[in-house]
C-alpha cells in the first residue's frame, strides 16, 4: 500500500487515518531552532465531514487513501440512491444520501458533477459551480421593476430556494451559483 511521509504533506492530499479516508486541509511544519520537528495538520474526515487538528512527528508515514475525484453525469434517483455515470466508460455509481449531502438541492439530471470515490464507492458529490434551473414557485413578477434591487424567494425545480429579483416569473430559467446559492442572471435561451 502506498504511503506518504510528512515531508510530502500538502493540502488536498488524501490519507487514511483510523480507518477513514481524510483530506489534508492545511499542513504547518513546526520546528524550534533546537528541538524535534513536528507537522501540525488540519484534516477533514471525508466520511463525516468533520475537521480536526493532529500533530505528527516529522518523518512519520501515513497510508495513502485511494480517493479520486471523477467527473460524472447525474442520471436519476430512486429516492434512496442517486445514480451517476462516467461519460467515457459508462460506468455507473450509486451514491447514498450521506454522500450526496449538500449537493442534493442542486442535482439536475444530465448535469456533470464531481464525484469523490473511495475504493470505487461515492463518498461525496459536488454539483457544478453554476447550474440552470427553472423557477417552479414564486410571487407574481413586478413588471418593469428592474432597478430597485428588491428580492423575493423563489423555489427551483430541484427544491432549492434562492433569492431572485422581483421581476422574475414562475417558469423562468435562471443561473445560480451553487456555492453561495446566489442568483447570477437569466439563463440564455
Amino acid at each position, binding site marked *: 500500500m502506498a504511503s506518504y511521509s510528512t515531508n510530502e504533506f500538502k493540502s488536498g492530499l488524501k490519507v487514511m487515518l483510523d480507518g477513514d479516508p481524510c483530506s489534508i486541509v492545511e499542513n504547518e*511544519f*513546526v520546528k*524550534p531552532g*533546537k*528541538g*524535534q*520537528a513536528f507537522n501540525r495538520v488540519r484534516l477533514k474526515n471525508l466520511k463525516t465531514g468533520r475537521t480536526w487538528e*493532529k*500533530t505528527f512527528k516529522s518523518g512519520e508515514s501515513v497510508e495513502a487513501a485511494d480517493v479520486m475525484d471523477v467527473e460524472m453525469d447525474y442520471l436519476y434517483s430512486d429516492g434512496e440512491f442517486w445514480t451517476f455515470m462516467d461519460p467515457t466508460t459508462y460506468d455507473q455509481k450509486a451514491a447514498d444520501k450521506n454522500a450526496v449531502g449538500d449537493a442534493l438541492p442542486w442535482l439536475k439530471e444530465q448535469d456533470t458533477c464531481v464525484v469523490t470515490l473511495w475504493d470505487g464507492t461515492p463518498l461525496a458529490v459536488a454539483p457544478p459551480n453554476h447550474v440552470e434551473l427553472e423557477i417552479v414557485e414564486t410571487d407574481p413578477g413586478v413588471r418593469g421593476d428592474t432597478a430597485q434591487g428588491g428580492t423575493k424567494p423563489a423555489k427551483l425545480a430541484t427544491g432549492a430556494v434562492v433569492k431572485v429579483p422581483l421581476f422574475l416569473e414562475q417558469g423562468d430559467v435562471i443561473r445560480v451559483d451553487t456555492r453561495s446559492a446566489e442568483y447570477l442572471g437569466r439563463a440564455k435561451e
Partner: protein
Amino acid sequence: MHIEAALLARQQLYRRARDYLREQDVLEVETPLLGSAGTTDPQIESFQLRAGGQTRYLQTSPEFFLKRLVASTGRSVYSLGKVFRNGETGRWHNPEFSMLEWYRVGFNLQGIMQDTCQLVAACLGQPELQAHRVSYRELFEQHFSLNPHRAELPEVEPLVHQYTSYQAPLVSVAEGLQLLMDQVIEPGFYSPFTLLYHFPADQCALARLTDCEGDPVAERFELYAGQLELANGYHELTDADEQAHRFANDLQQRQQAGQPQVTVDQALVEALRSGMPDCAGVSVGMDRLLAHAMQLDGIQPLLPFGWSQS
C-alpha cells in the same frame, strides 16, 4: 508585495545590523560554508557532499568556526550569511536561510540578552525593545504547576494528550515539554517581544549549565517576536571535556535513532582546551526578522528565489 521592496528592506536591515555591530567593536568575519565537520545535534541534519575523497558538510550554523576564532583572537566577532538545514521547509523555514551570529567576549547570559534586544531594536529603527522576561520554569509552573527541570514522563504525557493535538505515546520528557511549549504556552505570548531563558539542561546545545535554585539549567535564551522565534543564544560552554562529552552523547543518540553519523569538530574541542575566553553568543534568523519588520506571515514572500524556484 513587490520583490524589489523586499530586496530594499533586506539591504536596510543588514546595514543597520552591521552599523550596530561596528559601533560595538564586533568584527565581521567570513567562515567556511563547506566544513570537514558538521553539527552533531540529532535534531538538525546537514547537507553532505563528497569533495576530494572526503565528506564535507554545508554548515548549519557558523558557531564552531566563530568560537574557534574567539579562542584564537580573543575578539568579539560576527558573521552574516547563509546556513543550510536539510529537510526544513515551511512557512517559517527554508532549507537555506540567512543567519546573523555574533559572540561577545566577557558577556554573560544577561549581557547577551540585553545586547540582542539592542541589536533588534537598531534593526527595526526603534530606540529600544520592550521585552517581557520569563524563565522556562516560570511558564510551566504558571500553566501546568509543573517544574520542567524535574518533570517525569508519567506527569508530562497526560498533559500533552490533554492539551495538544499530539496523541501518540511520548518518547521523552523533552519532546513533551516542547509540544506543550509550542501548542499551549507560546500561543499565550501576548507581549511584542518575549525573552525566554534558563532552558532545561537536556536542551543545552552549546550553552553552559548552571544551578538555579537546586535545578541544573542551561544558560540559554530565545527571543520571540510575538509567537515567532527570532533568536537563540548562550552563555557559551568553554569546557573542552564537557564539549567532547556532548559530541559523543549526540553521536550515540544518532546511532540509536539510525541517523547518519557526523564527523565531529575536534578543532573546536582543541580550541576550547587552548583557552577560550568567557563569552556569550547568539544567532538571529534574518529572514524572520525581516518578515516581522514587514508584518508578513511567513518568510517565503521575501525570498527572490524560494526553494521551488532555485
